[in-house]
């Protein structure tokens, strides 16, 4: 098993890891010859899940990966450790590289940061992030949630607006109903015995992910009732391209958010697939009563 690579875009990798920092303590890193995937599962079946999929060449250069199982490597790591290691890459590094290594018999992801000291000498900083190796069978068990097709897909309004409003609504209930129709309207509703608040966002761009499917434009709202806590976790976690977020409502099942990574500026639905190098997909399951 071997992993050795230059990290050509450590900033992007850091931002992705920062996005998942508040979701959980640990995450799974799945590396294949072409893709880098990060998976966070908070509670099986009922919790928020994050599946991040990035093109390896958006982050790595001179990428060497070898293993007995399709040249894929799977590890579990502590998010905070990796975040701290990646933060060290941000202060004027000449180059960053990463490899899988063993320290005292235990596997680590070793991140080597080469920079220039004040006197002109090259200095190397090594950050070792302990990891737990996962077998192919263990990885097999971890699958993206299977869900029916969503009823409506649309571009989210600016996330910081939605976040500040949701934060003020959070005291009113632990469940939030997220609804949308195909006319570009989204509703966020929280209620308890004393107060019932519905906030409307309008003028949103709707779309279908399947170009052949005809979009019936109608005012019917489709709703999924999710945990307020998970909704806030998603809203508070964006560090990458907060302008290009697609929301999909799968009635009675989940709310899914697709955050497209690497797109520059807001290009609307059309620009999503062109300029992005991957995505973060947040699954927020419907709250079980």
């Amino acid at each position, binding site marked *: 098993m071997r992993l050795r690579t230059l990290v050509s875009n450590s900033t992007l990798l850091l931002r992705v890891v920062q996005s998942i920092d508040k979701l959980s303590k640990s995450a799974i890193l799945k590396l294949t010859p072409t893709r880098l995937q990060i998976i966070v599962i908070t509670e099986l079946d009922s919790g928020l899940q994050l599946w991040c999929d990035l093109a390896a060449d958006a982050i790595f250069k001179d990428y060497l990966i070898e293993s007995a199982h399709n040249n894929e490597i799977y590890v579990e790591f502590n998010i905070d450790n990796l975040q701290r290691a990646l933060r060290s890459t941000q202060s004027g590094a000449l180059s960053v590289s990463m490899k899988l290594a063993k320290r005292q018999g235990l596997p680590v992801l070793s991140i080597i940061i080469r920079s220039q000291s004040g006197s002109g000498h090259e200095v190397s900083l090594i950050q070792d992030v302990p990891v737990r190796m996962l077998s192919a069978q263990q990885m097999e068990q971890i699958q993206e949630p299977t869900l029916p097709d969503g009823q409506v897909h649309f571009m989210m*309004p600016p996330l*910081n*607006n939605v*976040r*500040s*409003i949701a*934060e*003020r*609504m959070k*005291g*009113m209930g632990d469940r939030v109903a997220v609804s949308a129709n195909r006319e570009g309207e989204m509703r966020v509703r929280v*209620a308890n*015995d*004393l*107060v*019932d*608040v*519905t*906030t*409307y*966002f*309008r*003028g949103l761009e709707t779309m279908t992910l399947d170009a052949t499917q005809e979009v019936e434009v109608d005012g019917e709202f489709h709703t999924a009732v999710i945990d307020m806590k998970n909704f806030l976790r998603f809203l508070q976690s964006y560090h990458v391209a907060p302008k290009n977020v697609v929301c999909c409502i799968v009635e009675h099942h989940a709310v899914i958010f697709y955050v497209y990574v690497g797109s520059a500026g807001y290009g609307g639905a059309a620009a999503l697939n062109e300029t992005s190098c991957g995505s973060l997909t947040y699954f927020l399951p419907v709250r079980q009563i």
Partner: protein
Amino acid sequence: MTAVHGTATEFVPMLFRAKLANVRPLVNMLKTISFRPRARCIISPDGLVFAVEESQCLVAQAYLRAELFTTFSYNVQLAEYYRNQEQEAFEDEVSQDGEQSDATQVVLPLDNLIECLTLFYGPAGTSASSTQSSSISATNLYTSGNPGDLRGATTAVIGFKGPGADFELMLEERGTISQCRLSTFVPEPPVDLRFSHYPTTQQLIIQSKWLRDAFNELDPTSESVHISIASTEPHFRISTMGENGSTDMTYSNSERILDSFFCNEDQENQYNLSLILKCKQALAMSDKTKIRINQRGFLSFQFMIPTSADVSFVNFVFAPLVSADEPVAPATARV
């Protein structure tokens, strides 16, 4: 949740409807009395009064005159119709002292009302809460106290259909709309400290900045605060005696400090300090404060708060703890 009032096809007329171009003045007025979870809202052709009471010895009221609203409509005939309906149902209802005969009273959750009105205020946790800071500084009715809050104005439409209905709010800011419904409750007879039932024996108007200074000096470890007003020097004295020693603020009847002064009878009374401190926010927003004490030693603070139209008022009435017979510790600072 309260039951749906009427069906989609049944038209239920609005008893009360008002529009506000900017919710800030309303929010800041409500925050002056927001130390209780529920408030009584009294709707009349003159405007709205929000009232809270605590421990049967403090009553606070914030007055919002109809002129502060962009539009204000209250259906007096409909109000009378509902009142007659209630009286038929409860034959032995006693009419309240001092209650306006054409007013409608409803109790609603005050903290939720403020939460709804501040929905578009921006990130939570960054707004300054002056109840947390120990010293009072002047604030403005039109600011949120948070210098980082640069958002535009939230407009609001407030509506109420009548007894049993929800209190409705529709808020809007830059295209985003929020509809809020607050459950209402049947009001119980109000706590009436009956301040006006006894003659006012002492009255003065002081510029609020002096009173803020005095409040900042008060020792919060003291259980009570002594307030004495006399026709001889020192005319107005506020003092506490706590674990850290005693504090004493005195004011003389000089034009520079007291706008007016009237004293029929020298009196010194004690009041519960923690209750007195509940008026900090109202004091922070006011220009001037009118202080009155009646024959029974009940204390009234009337805070005059500048608004676009004129002046808005917030009233606090406190019952005394005990009428002190001995004078307090000797004077120290003299203003």
